[in-house]
């Protein structure tokens, strides 16, 4: 197990290094500099500005310095936003993004499990079809369409909730719902299939033969086993959540990482774009690693086979 973890971490560092390198050289190849055309600087002043960003050195020197700074958590200085360090900007914006993502995953998965469970219990009945339809709609319709729908109905037409912004709990309701529908649909679909499979398994028949009540069979024996494989879909779920959060943050003007990325793209702020990309890559890879390890911890069968290898 330890060897497996170490190998995975090794792979992770390699992947991050590749991403950092590719990002750096792509940014170098792109046109644009911190100089703005409207500033009307003299040649000498331009040199001073470039010098202050370290852009006069040869690219390999810049690359080594970039990697060195990266290891220490320094992502450079933004070309915009009054030359604030990128790390400072991103740390400030990490909070809302993580809040949004975390609530969406928790709420979405919770309701998804319930929906899937209901569908499996009433297999081929009315509730099964209803929850299947909800699941198909949830996985198919992009979160930004949902966001628009929610915003129009509850904020514009009914005026119950604010259209945008962030801070108070009432601001969080619509974005979290819009973002949680995806995970909910995925979880519901998955739990339904798993539960139907588990229902026919031998240990449930044994439990029934022993005279356990239906609720005991469903909650104690069925659901626990059906939930284990749910961990495997958490990975894809989180990818779609990161994609979703970028648009949701833009729509609801939430001061998060995704919104920062979209803004930085508009103004060609390369250090910030680079920093955001790396944060996304880092978050994604670490979460996948945690999920993989978690899967081994939750399901003893996997741990045993993993250990004997």
């Amino acid at each position: 197990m330890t060897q497996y973890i170490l190998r995975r971490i090794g792979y992770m560092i390699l992947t991050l290094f590749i991403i950092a390198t590719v990002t750096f050289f792509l940014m170098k190849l792109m046109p644009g500099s911190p100089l703005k055309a409207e500033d009307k600087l003299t040649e000498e002043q331009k040199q001073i500005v470039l010098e202050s960003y370290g852009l006069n050195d040869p690219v390999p020197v810049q690359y080594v310095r970039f990697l060195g700074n990266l290891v220490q958590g320094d992502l450079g200085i933004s070309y915009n936003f009054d030359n604030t360090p990128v790390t400072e900007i991103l740390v400030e914006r990490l909070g809302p993004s993580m809040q949004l993502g975390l609530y969406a995953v928790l709420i979405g998965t919770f309701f998804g499990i319930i929906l899937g469970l209901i569908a499996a219990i009433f297999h081929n009945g009315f509730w099964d079809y209803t929850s299947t339809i909800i699941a198909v709609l949830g996985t198919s319709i992009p979160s930004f369409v949902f966001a628009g729908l929610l915003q129009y109905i509850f904020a514009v037409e009914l005026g119950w909730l604010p259209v945008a912004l962030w801070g108070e709990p009432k601001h969080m309701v619509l974005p979290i719902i819009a973002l949680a529908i995806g995970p909910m649909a995925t979880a519901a679909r998955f739990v339904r299939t798993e539960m139907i499979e588990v229902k026919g398994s031998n240990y449930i028949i044994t439990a029934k033969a022993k005279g356990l009540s239906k609720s005991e069979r469903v909650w104690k024996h069925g659901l626990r086993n059906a939930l284990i494989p749910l961990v495997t879909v958490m990975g894809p779920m989180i990818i779609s959540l990161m994609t979703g959060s970028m648009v949701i943050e833009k729509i609801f003007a939430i001061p998060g990482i995704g919104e920062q990325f979209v803004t930085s793209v508009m103004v060609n702020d390369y250090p910030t774009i680079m920093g955001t990309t790396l944060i996304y890559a880092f978050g994604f890879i670490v979460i996948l690693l945690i999920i993989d390890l978690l899967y081994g911890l939750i399901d003893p069968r996997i741990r045993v086979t993993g250990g004997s290898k």
Partner: protein
Amino acid sequence: MDNKNLNNLPKELFKPLVNQENTSEKISRPSRTFGQNARRTLFKNIPAMISLTLLILIILMSIIGPFMNSYGSKDQKLEHAKLPPRVPGLENVSWLGFNGTLSDEMTGATVEQATQKAYLRFNKDEEFIDIKVISEGDGSPNSAEVKAIYHIYDAKGLDDTYYWLGTDQLGRDQWTRLWEGTRVSLIIAFVAALLDLVIGVAYGGISGFYGGRVDNFMQRIIEILAGIPNLVIILLMMLFLKPGMTSIIIALVITGWTGMARIVRGEVLKLKNQEFVLAARTLGTSNGKIIRKHLIPNISGIIIVNTMFTIPTAVFFESFLSFIGLGIAPPAASLGSLIDIGFDNMQIYPYMLVFPAALLSIIMIAFNILGDGLRDAFDPKMHK
């Protein structure tokens, strides 16, 4: 039943089963090939067939739709900007919303005040604004409410002008732009899915078939590529390449093919040691022919299903990129860029958002349901 009774069953109840010649050879149901079975299962799947019909309809409309009226997708006419939908015939059915009017509800201390607000809201064209009083109000702030209906086509003197889905902020016809945008989105999705298929099948097939060191090396490359989140790669590629259709396709394919390659490799590994492959090899069939004639047909079901799910993913990513401003560059339109513009005008001109968003959702749902249907169709367990 009691155990005793079972032991004391009368002998007369037992009769030997007569083996009859005519029943043992009887075929209980017509024998069908796998393809026929798959097609039957698919045709019996009503939601999947509805989805297929809808998709064919949408594809046809994306081809002929822009030619159904005389407006071009890039014809700007600023004086016709932000006109609501108006359809000949349907304009007399008020609740449909195709009558070419804008409406808004205004509040004020008195009806008079609310009415004045409504006039200000719609360019002070008093003679073309109908005011309906919703509540009289008692003099306190915002207690009176009126509904103003603005006949904007009449106000602009456009009696014989019909924009079926309205116009955008630059006076371009939304109907034309919607179908041209759908065309762009679908072309991107189909080409990306096709490239994923070709690269993935070739890579996975070679990797799985040759095995050993080749497989090991090729799998390491995939492992590194798949470890990098596709969102990050797609965003980086979009920043680096010029916005447009080709760039989106390249960005999608760079990461997209790995999934297909993995699936194909797994299937080939499973199949390549089976007897029919061994028989073909014994007969001297070349490797290329074994892959083409024996392996690919056997995994075609999985390939088709996987491609069907790639298409909606590509549609989604295209609209996502265009929505955050990295995809299709104006004046060209795609579903994503239309939705983006729609969001900016949602509060006052909701029709700009509703139609592209609804069409995108329908496309996504239809592809997903059709994909599910195909998966069932290629699953022998589902055949009846």
